[in-house]
């Protein structure tokens, strides 16, 4: 089975994240890039499916040159090879643009199963799996907490507010996973040492036949027009209880229109 995992590099949530004042997009140079956490679960699931059913796991990453670190991490976990979609023309693409670029690339490299994390910690749109499936004309099995494959049949448990739905489809398909699905493995040191020898193919927009009118900042359907740093929290007010504490607390809540 030919499994492609889409893996994104995001700014480390432990460091200070910034938008660039130049074009209001995420400043990817300002923070350390790390693998998006949910993508680790996606890689783990791909590796598990490969271990059970055979085949090959390809990592697909769209991102700037430094995203190779993230690709190596996925390869160190055990993926077989990678495709890095990197092109200045892609900078600033919104979800629609990104899904077009990835779908074009997926058509080029071929797949039986595409696995994604259900969202990224930077943009948090959570729509990419659905958009990709639509563009590829395949079923979408999103928010999976469990995936089963039997021949060309695939079924998942989709997490819902009330429990889960059982969703079945036929491969090829696009699956997005949630944290509950597995426990991602640590890359082994052997895996880390082997990762640098695994093939990473670089694609530009022309290689993947991406329509440049549909990608990049200028073609985005959404735009960040302005941003501001959240003001620091004001110091709290301390109410001293001199027998009238209850009344003072009620006064405070009323002033904030809570009561």
């Amino acid at each position, binding site marked *: 089975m030919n499994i492609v995992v889409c893996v994104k590099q995001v700014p480390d949530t432990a460091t200070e994240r910034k938008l660039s004042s130049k074009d209001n997009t995420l400043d990817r140079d300002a923070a350390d890039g790390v693998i998006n956490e949910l993508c680790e679960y996606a890689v783990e699931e791909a590796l598990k499916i490969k271990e059970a059913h055979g085949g090959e796991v390809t990592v697909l990453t769209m991102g700037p040159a430094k995203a190779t*670190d993230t690709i*190596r*991490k996925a390869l*160190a976990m055990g993926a077989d090879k990678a495709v890095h979609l990197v092109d200045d023309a892609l900078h600033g693409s919104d979800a629609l643009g990104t899904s077009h670029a990835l779908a074009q690339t997926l058509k080029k490299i071929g797949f039986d199963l595409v696995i994604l994390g259900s969202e990224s910690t930077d943009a948090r749109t959570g729509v990419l799996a659905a958009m990709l499936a639509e563009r590829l004309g395949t079923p979408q099995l999103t928010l999976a907490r469990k995936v089963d494959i039997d021949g060309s049949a695939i079924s998942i448990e989709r997490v819902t507010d009330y429990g889960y739905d059982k969703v079945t489809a036929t491969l090829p398909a696009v699956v997005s996973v949630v944290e509950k699905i597995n426990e991602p*493995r*640590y*890359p*082994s*040191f*052997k*895996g*880390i*040492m082997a*990762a*640098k020898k695994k093939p990473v193919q670089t694609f530009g927009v022309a290689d993947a036949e991406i329509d440049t009118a549909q990608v990049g900042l200028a073609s985005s359907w959404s735009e960040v027009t302005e941003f501001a740093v959240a003001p620091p929290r004001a110091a709290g007010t301390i109410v001293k209880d001199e027998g009238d504490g209850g009344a003072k607390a009620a006064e405070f809540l009323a002033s904030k229109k809570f009561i």
Partner: protein
Amino acid sequence: MSALNPEDFLDVDRDLSGEERAIRDTVRAYGDAELLPHVADWFEAGTIPDPRGLARSMGKLGVFGMHLTGYGCAGAGAVGYGVACRELEAVDSGLRSFVSVQGSLAMTAIHRYGTDAQKQEWLPRMVTGEALGCFGLTEPDSGSDPGSMRTRARRDGDDWVLDGTKMWITNGSVADVAIVWARTDEGIRGFLVPASAPGFSANVIHKKISLRASITSELVLDGVRLPKEALLPGAEGLKAPLSCLSEARYGIVWGAAGAARACLLSAIDYAKSRVQFDRPIAGFQLTQRKIADMLVDVNHAMLTALSIGRLKDAGNAHHAHVSFGKLANVRAAQRVAATARSILGANGITLEYPVMRHMVNLETVATYEGTEEVHALTLGRAVTGLDAFR
């Protein structure tokens, strides 16, 4: 004024390769998730409760013999191995010892001095943690001067028969195989002693107040009969075990920097939040002096480790370089741990914080693999040419 990063103040890690960084991040993530939440309890209990389970999980990561090549070893190089030791010992010296003994002492002895059959039998299972090894050199009456050992191996037909006692042997009572060094008519030789061999027994040493998250044992060899295939053919004379010790000692150079860093970070964190005389104790000049001294010690230690690591990867590390690193870094770590402990006041003496655990662990680290005095003598000899050992 925004604070600079005390974790790697001089950005020493900028020099790490992508793989070395990946190893660091993996061990850190593994240590934070799998070891740190338990280690204080293990220390208090005075043991590692599930050494087999720990060995398998560390084996999965690939830490055992990670600097070696072949037999399933990762071939990660000296700096890669060092970074792993640093991050493990930032959790606890006992856990780094667990790895040092398996990878640097037992596996290195087999890898360097063993026959193909010995390597095939043991190394693949030791890499994964399925099999555990220990390294028996020290004896009750023979420590810094291992040449005075009394354990004897005598030939009996084609067999060898071993008699003697080894002391302070890390993982001795959980090991499947003990690398035992013994005196023979042809000098000191090494033997692979399976734990199942009749006449071999191991007794846990209790009442330790240092390196408690580690199993330390006495090995008793009472007429242990071994076939001739148990001899490590490549190991002749004392220099064989000493060269294995140099490998493990190299890991300590990095490990001590990790323990020191953990103490520094704990102390800074505590000093910033602990308020006395109406302000954080970190704001007092006397505390800042302590913090500055610790910062210097930690960063010196990290630089020393990296410098020796690069020499080693280039094939230019002399064993005296490793002695330098052990002397300098363990001493630095001891200073940092004691200073950090003072900053934490009463809380500093508990297992709620890592500092006193590190502080007492470092007493062992300063003693094993050559005491501070022994390394001072080694350095003195290295640069004067005069031997002051005896």
